[in-house]
């Protein structure tokens, strides 16, 4: 009996909750660590980047306005969906990064756990970073964190899945929407993540995933007037400087590449990747006064 011929997957972008090909019609060859062909991934264009920003902006009102509890449930749902497709991601990560099956499994497990970790943060971060301020006057003064808006995320180049999840989850946990540029050489786990997000009740447009040349896609994102922030995790030193310079044009919040990039994505993250994309809003309300004659109790 001849061996069954397997069915290949056509890897597509994930934009606005849909799975388009690049509008440019371009693809590029993705290979495994040994150079063996894995797939043709979409080679995204500037236009794809702009379309993704439009989708992310459109999704921002609903996602930032959702209750923190609801966002937490959806992030947890992402973990549930990933758990069910664990074997697929282990295979993809092993292929992409040239890892043994057990090492790839450790990466995938940590990535799933990371979604759970951030799911729990959605309704706690405001209590940790916000609060009342004891101003010297008859005012109730409250500071609360709010999401910055549309965040461009350059995913780490080496850690194709754990690194990716580690930069995307904190951005959306707090209510931002994201345009994610997948690892240039290992885009397949990222593109597959779109399939999980699409079935996790995450509204379309909250996360948009593009594959292609990082520098080509990142340049229009860094210069885009409707992008509020950029995470440069996946940019090398020279590109990071170029993008940070372009980002100054509308004063994007910039998270520079951290020195630990590529080193240890498995450590428990702090809150920095969330707070980097939060604004603090402070509201003053007059309290009035009942006067000294009021009850002491």
């Amino acid at each position, binding site marked *: 009996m001849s061996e069954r011929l397997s069915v290949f997957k056509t890897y597509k972008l994930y934009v606005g909750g849909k799975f388009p090909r690049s509008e440019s019609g371009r693809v590029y060859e993705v290979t495994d660590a040994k150079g063996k062909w894995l797939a043709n991934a979409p080679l995204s264009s500037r236009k794809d980047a702009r379309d993704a920003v439009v989708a992310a902006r459109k999704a921002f009102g609903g996602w930032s306005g959702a209750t923190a509890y609801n966002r937490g449930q959806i992030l947890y749902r992402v973990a549930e969906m990933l758990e069910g497709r664990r074997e697929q991601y282990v295979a993809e990560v092993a292929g992409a990064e040239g890892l043994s099956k057990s090492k790839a499994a450790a990466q995938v497990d940590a990535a799933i756990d990371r979604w759970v970790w951030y799911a729990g943060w959605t309704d706690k971060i405001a209590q940790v970073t916000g609060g009342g*301020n004891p101003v010297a006057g008859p005012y109730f003064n409250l500071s609360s964190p709010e999401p*910055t808006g549309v965040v461009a995320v350059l995913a780490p180049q080496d850690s194709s899945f754990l690194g990716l999840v580690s930069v995307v989850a904190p951005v959306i946990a707090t209510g931002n929407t994201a345009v994610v540029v997948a690892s240039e050489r290992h885009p397949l786990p990222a593109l597959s993540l779109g399939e999980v997000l699409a079935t996790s009740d995450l509204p379309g447009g909250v996360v948009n995933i593009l594959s292609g040349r990082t520098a080509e896609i990142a340049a229009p994102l860094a210069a885009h007037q409707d992008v*509020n922030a950029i995470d440069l995790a996946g940019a090398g030193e020279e590109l990071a400087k170029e993008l940070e310079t372009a980002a*100054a044009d509308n004063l994007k919040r910039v998270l520079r590449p951290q020195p630990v990039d590529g080193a240890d994505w498995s450590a428990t993250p702090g809150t920095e990747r969330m707070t980097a994309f939060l604004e603090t*809003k*402070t509201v003053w309300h007059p309290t009035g006064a009942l006067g000294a004659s009021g009850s002491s109790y």
Partner: protein
Amino acid sequence: MAPVFEYAPAPESRAVVDIAPSYGLFIDGEFAEAADGKVFKTVSPSTEEVLSEVAEAGEADVDRAVGAARKAFEKWSALPGAERAKYLFRIARIIQERSRELAVLETLDNGKPIRETRDADLPLVAAHFFYYAGWADKLDHAGYGANPRPLGVAGQVIPWNFPLLMLAWKIAPALATGNTVVLKPAETTPLSALFFADICRQAGLPKGVVNIVTGDGRAGAALIAHPDVNKVAFTGSTAVGKEIARTVAGTRKKLTLELGGKGANIVFDDAPIDQAVEGIVSGIFFNQGQVCCAGSRLLVQESVHDELLDSLKRRLGTLRLGDPLDKNTDIGAINSAEQLARITALADQGEAEGAERWSPACELPSSGYWFAPTLFTNVTQAHTVARDEIFGPVLSVLTFRTPDEAVAKANNTPYGLSAGIWTEKGSRILSVANKLRAGVIWSNTFNKFDPTSPFGGYKESGFGREGGRHGLEAYLDV
């Protein structure tokens, strides 16, 4: 309308402040001339009288100041927090003791009314140092992890609208967290920073912990670009803020920016009109409107537009413009000829674009830089006076019908610093405040400040917060 009362002049005495004919740069605990001997004059905007001659720092001087701050950093950052705190408490107390002197000085150099420097600027300056003094030995509890570390040398560039208050916002948190600083005050208002140097001397602050370099934009640029500066903090225009962001791109310098604004002050039809009028006046005419968080766009619900405008115009007719040292003065001088020219040009443009201009009958003094309180009505969102930050006593009035429209118009700006909401309905305050994209929102009040309350913008109004626990982050390696 006839003037309500004739007021006799009630000037605050100048005798309380002794301005020297010249000042040097304050570097490593000593006043020194600029390396190339350059100086510039600082004038009183209300009279154009020359107050003093001040050293103009060049690159060499900035380099020397950064070197002094670097040298002082090791010991200062290693000092127990409780000791740093006591220095800051000393400074806060000395500011309180010398507050009348500093208020008069600030009014002379800046042109703002003594009522403001005496009742707002100086009390807030002292309070800011007092507040951050208390943090210096409690940083472990600030929510930034155990033993958060300072960054090193902070390069700080501040504007002329609240010279001493902006200095306090910059220096107090920097020192509390263990950094040392080089501060460049604005070219037109260098004096209070130089008096602050004397306060550092009186407080016994170790040499080099605070360095003051006076000069123009070139000194500021040299400071920001200096390779041995670890932290850049800037308050000023959005255009310069963007330039600074480009300068620090690709470095490890931590950056916080507090920039321009075009704040919306939203008045709903159920607002207490008299209170709202007071809030509108304080929102745009406080400090001659030279305030980044000014409520420079008045958004009025259509149904109360005429009533509100009548009250507002009546109120503006009672504002007293004139000698800033007079205790009855509401509106002082514009800070500089350059700023006056900018305000004048933008107001003229508003008129040319078809908005309707109105000012109360108001006699302007013959010398100095003055601009009458000005309203623009029939303003649309496309008008320059509704879009550009004027940084002067000019209010643009727009209307809306529904809360959604108010929010959409309020957010229709690249800025996002402040906003005001006037309504008696609590749930409307909360829902509108929730939708406004601005860092500071005042409901049924305006232009309130407090050292415990974080201040800073969304979008192109900058990033980072000053004040409160949040203000520590800008100076910590976290």
